[in-house]
């Protein structure tokens, strides 16, 4: 296996980061880390906070880059070849295209049960990823097994 993709959702899902790094290292694979600024999420957060959508998107994007660089630090410390990507749009469409274009052989995502609409939405994203992404999907349960 040469190419592993880690979909970074938040800084909370560190078990999936560790798993992706561990697999990349043991398989000598390149690790691609992807953060997506989900436009629907931007709209929802802006509405809830009563803030401007552009400002919210800027804030989320910068936070995303921080996650990516934190991940990179960890991966590089482990001698794993790492490439960072940040994209905007619908997560399912972006990940599906990314997997095809970059010939990704394994997608790693974290999963943490959380209440409310956001938890439900993320569960749906994972379901759709399993259904639509043309490669195996490894779901790493966060916060205990």
């Amino acid at each position, binding site marked *: 296996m040469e190419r592993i993709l880690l979909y970074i959702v938040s800084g909370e899902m560190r078990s999936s980061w560790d798993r992706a790094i561990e697999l990349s290292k043991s398989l000598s694979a390149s690790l691609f880390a992807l953060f997506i600024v989900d436009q629907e999420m931007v709209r929802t957060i802006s509405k809830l906070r009563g803030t401007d959508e552009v400002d919210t998107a800027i804030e989320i*994007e910068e936070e995303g880059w*921080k996650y990516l660089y934190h991940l990179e*630090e960890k991966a*590089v410390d482990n001698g794993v070849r790492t490439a960072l*990507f940040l994209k905007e749009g619908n997560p399912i469409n972006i990940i599906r295209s990314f997997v095809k274009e970059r010939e990704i052989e394994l997608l790693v995502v974290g999963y943490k049960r959380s209440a409310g609409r956001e938890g439900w939405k993320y569960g749906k994203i994972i379901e759709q990823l399993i259904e639509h992404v043309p490669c195996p999907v490894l779901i790493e349960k966060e916060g205990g097994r």
Partner: protein
Amino acid sequence: MIEELLDEDLILVLDSIEDKFKLIEMMVDKALSKGLIMTREPILHKIREREELESTGVVEGIAIPHARTEAVKDLLLAVAVVKRGLDFQSLDGKPVYMVFLIVAPEDAKKKYINVLARISRMCRQEEFRTALKEATSTSEILKIIREFDI
């Protein structure tokens, strides 16, 4: 955030250069001549090691080589604009026109990540990339970075 780190003397405008490590050496030497770094070799070694693992050309036309090392006392930011572009072995295979070199002390991880994140976000803006690419002087580059650093 970026503005306070920028020093006009650490901005380079070049017509062309063939080797990415040569450019990084030039940027490091600028900092050395200003007394901002203690020794150049550990920095060059760390940057080379990181670049050999995977290119830091992550945003179209831009590379952000970065490292943490005890060879610097404070976070260092240097900028280079290469008018004719440079092969940085970027993931997209396209030439790089702007290089942001970021070197931080080992114990400044939070600030280092924050600066990397801010610059990466700024670099994703097409207007920012275009303005930098067209800039002809160090003062103009400084002005553009200030303008987009929000």
